[in-house]
């Protein structure tokens, strides 16, 4: 599948990849022809990817979810073994089989999910595994001094004695960064570092990143937020569906071009559907505010309405309030302000079961821990949202024959291959599990479906099935609110598109006329006027 890996190939590609004569210091990182196929999910995550980072630059790696960015960086950090490809660090060809080897080469990675010990102090976390000792005991004073030294060297103030579990996320991230610096990392990989930060904290982080670059460190940061890229990166590489689309200096590009590169020009697969014939409003959300934590809003003053027989898509980059919005509408999280109405009746304070009894169905983001109980049978899974109905419960006892027929109906109607009524569902594949969820949620003839990332992690065939199911529901007059970070999905399904950014609706587009680029710009927090 690939050219053999040898020094010549490396050298040749090194010259080509920067697009200019490169006579300065050697490239900090060079990856050639990286290919990685995941047989379990049948995903070609990296397809002959070339990637080069100059020493001392801030290099952004952007792409949609599933574009292969994290896989590429995991290959560099020794967490994933590539099927093919070669890597050079500081101009020398290397093979990295394990993160220890990457660390020895001066590569450090800060993951999306921090790997810190919450009950340890900042100093203990930073020096974990390399604690200064004295007579076999850890020398606390020396520990503190080492951490203070790191702080002042890199201008990253932290309290060495603070317990990590007590720190806000932004400071925990700083501890992670210091941890890699303590291990002499000259090349830092930050995986979606701003995903967990507030805008202000993100600004501080950019300051830190610039400071690191000024001190000669190389920073690779993964993101899909284009505004950040323009703000902090020197160069940017764009990936799409496992392929490297291109690398550009920031000065030569703009958000609009990057959005196009990220999303692609190809004609998207569109599900065949007739124009929507919307009826009366079913779901009305008025000036809704939802808090992420006490006093920190994730959704602010948001209004939307979904009518019978239409699909309203909520587009947006993950972490802009989607989960909180869905949880508030479905009753899993209290609204801090505003009202929600279903079929004209206020439901803002109703418990989950009452909303469901009034015709709301919910396809959850996380089918494994929310959508299903993997410890029990198909029957008990399909009845969870409906067991209060008299046909399934009589005098406090479950009517097992009726529940069994419901399970059989779900299997038949949604062709859940390999599932049998009365048996455990834990061995079913992801696609079949999602069919169980869909079957259950559609079985009660809902008036309104809230679908959050309904195709996450599914293969193409299952995605098509889910899409067709939602469109069929729409055509039967169901109001569908589709929340997805997959632009393709929004474009294929939605009749109207709302763009969610930092907890607010920043734009509404008619799906028939919406251009992917416009959406991409809105999702990244830009406005259509300034970008064009």
């Amino acid at each position, binding site marked *: 599948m690939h050219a053999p890996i040898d020094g010549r190939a490396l050298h040749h590609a090194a010259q080509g990849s920067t697009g200019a004569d490169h006579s300065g210091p050697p490239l900090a990182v060079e990856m050639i022809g990286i290919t990685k196929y995941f047989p379990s999910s049948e995903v070609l995550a990296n397809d002959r990817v070339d990637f080069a980072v100059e020493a001392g630059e801030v290099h952004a790696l952007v792409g949609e979810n599933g574009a292969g960015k994290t896989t590429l960086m995991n290959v560099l950090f020794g967490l994933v073994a590539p099927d093919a490809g070669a890597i050079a660090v500081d101009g020398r060809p290397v093979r990295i089989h394990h993160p220890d080897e990457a660390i020895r080469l001066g590569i450090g990675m800060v993951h999306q999910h921090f790997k810190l010990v919450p009950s340890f102090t900042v100093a203990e976390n930073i020096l974990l595994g390399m604690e200064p000792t004295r007579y076999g005991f850890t020398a606390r004073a020396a520990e503190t001094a080492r951490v203070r030294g790191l702080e002042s060297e890199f201008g990253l103030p932290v309290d060495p004695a603070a317990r990590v579990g007590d720190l806000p996320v932004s400071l925990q991230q700083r501890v992670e960064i210091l941890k890699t610096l303590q291990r002499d990392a000259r090349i830092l990989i930050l995986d979606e570092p701003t995903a967990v930060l507030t805008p202000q904290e993100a600004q501080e982080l950019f300051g830190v990143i610039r400071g690191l670059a000024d001190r000669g460190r190389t920073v690779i940061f993964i993101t899909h937020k284009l505004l950040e890229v323009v703000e902090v990166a020197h160069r940017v590489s764009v990936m799409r569906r496992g392929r490297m689309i291109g690398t550009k200096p920031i000065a030569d590009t703009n958000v609009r071009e990057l959005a196009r590169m990220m999303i692609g020009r190809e004609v998207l697969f569109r599900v065949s559907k007739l124009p929507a014939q919307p009826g009366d409003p079913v779901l009305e959300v008025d000036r809704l505010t939802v808090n992420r934590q006490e006093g920190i809003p994730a959704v602010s003053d948001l209004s939307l309405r979904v009518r019978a027989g239409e699909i309203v898509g909520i587009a947006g980059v993950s972490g802009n309030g989607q989960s909180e919005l869905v949880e508030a509408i*479905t*009753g*899993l999280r209290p609204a801090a302000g505003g009202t929600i109405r279903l079929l004209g009746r206020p439901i803002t304070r109703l*418990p*989950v*079961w*009452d*909303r*469901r009894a009034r015709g709301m169905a*919910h396809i*959850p983001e*996380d089918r494994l*821990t*929310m*959508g*299903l*109980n*993997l*410890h*029990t049978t198909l029957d*008990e899974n399909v009845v*969870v*949202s409906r*067991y*209060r109905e008299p046909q399934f*419960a009589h005098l*406090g*006892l*479950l009517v*097992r024959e009726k529940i069994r027929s419901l399970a059989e109906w779900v299997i038949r109607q949604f062709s859940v*291959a*390999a599932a*049998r009524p*009365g*048996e*455990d569902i834990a*061995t*079913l*594949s992801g*696609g*079949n599990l999602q069919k169980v969820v869909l079957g259950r949620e559609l079985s009660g003839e809902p008036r309104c479906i809230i679908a959050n990332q309904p195709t996450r992690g599914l293969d193409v065939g299952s995605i098509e099935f889910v899409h067709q199911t939602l469109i069929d529901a729409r055509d039967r007059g169901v109001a569908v609110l589709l929340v997805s970070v997959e632009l393709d999905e929004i474009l294929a399904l939605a009749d109207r598109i709302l763009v969610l950014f930092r907890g607010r609706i920043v734009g509404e587009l008619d799906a028939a006329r919406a251009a992917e680029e416009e959406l991409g710009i809105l999702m990244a927090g830009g406005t259509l006027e300034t970008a064009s």
Partner: protein
Amino acid sequence: MTPRRRGQILDALLIPILAILSGLALASVFVLLSKTSPLVAYRELFHAGFGCATLTRCALFTTLERATPLIFTGLSAVVAFRSGMFSIGQEGQFVLGAMVAAWLGYGVHLPPVVHPTVILILAMAVGAAYAYLPAILKLRLGVNEIITTIIFNNIAILFMTYLVNFPMRATRGSTAVTPVIDASAQLPEFLPGSHWGAGFILAILAVAFIWGYLWRSVPGYEQRMAGEAPGFARYGGIRSGRAALRGMLISGALAGMAGAIEVLGVHHQVLQGFSVGLGFDGVLVAILGQVHPIGVLMVAVLFAGIRLGAQIGLQITTNIPRELGGGILALIILFVAARSLYTDLLAWVARITGRGAAPRKEAA
């Protein structure tokens, strides 16, 4: 019954049996140390624990008598665990139930049948009330229920010691003991000379009731879903807090009933140091019994029998100390805890015999 379901039941039975055999095998080492043949020792143990020579000299009846409180406390733990609450407060609820029975047994005078019925109902209420406190602390304030139930156990035991020594102490005698309860309050026995009686019938009924509650009733479904998959339960609209609270109340009532039956059916009074860990044993019985009512019934009988067998058979007939009984139980628990050993073993046996009992993976 589908093949897969049958396989599950087979595994559920095979694992405790293999654990018992392994425990006995390892315990043989200690038997050999006291220069006795393990075969002789285990025969004696079995006879003394499960043998039945005549109706009046039947060890099995004594075993069933002693299994009765274990069945109740085991069920109590099952219901709590199946609601997602790791309550180990059975000991305290048991003790309070026993004190209610001891007090009302001599303190009020009612006709037969009515008297024990009233006492059992009140003991259940007190046990439930005592479980309510840790449950509400957990659900409202997030206080770890393991810690609170342990503390509550100590409080109940000390409270019992106080009651037995002072307000409820029978006037004469050097040991602290409460007065004997009225004959009208005592539970009937099947045969003279054994305390095996109505309490055991109640225990069997409780097994059937709890099984039906957990797997056939709507509230049982709610509490199992809340215990197994809290996110799923919330998402589906189950009020998990209520379901867990209900589980804790039923759990407390069962443990309270166990204490009352022990007083009404066996001891007829409360001595200082009355509780000998029957509540704690309930947790072990529940876990060994795969957190299932039927498993609890079987394990409780086995537990009681091995203890009795070790006490009578080993101690009296051979010169092996009866503590070995406790040692064997401990080893069995250890082997059940290492159950992955058996699942691996079974999978291996299945592979070499080509039976294909390994869990069927879907060909996606």
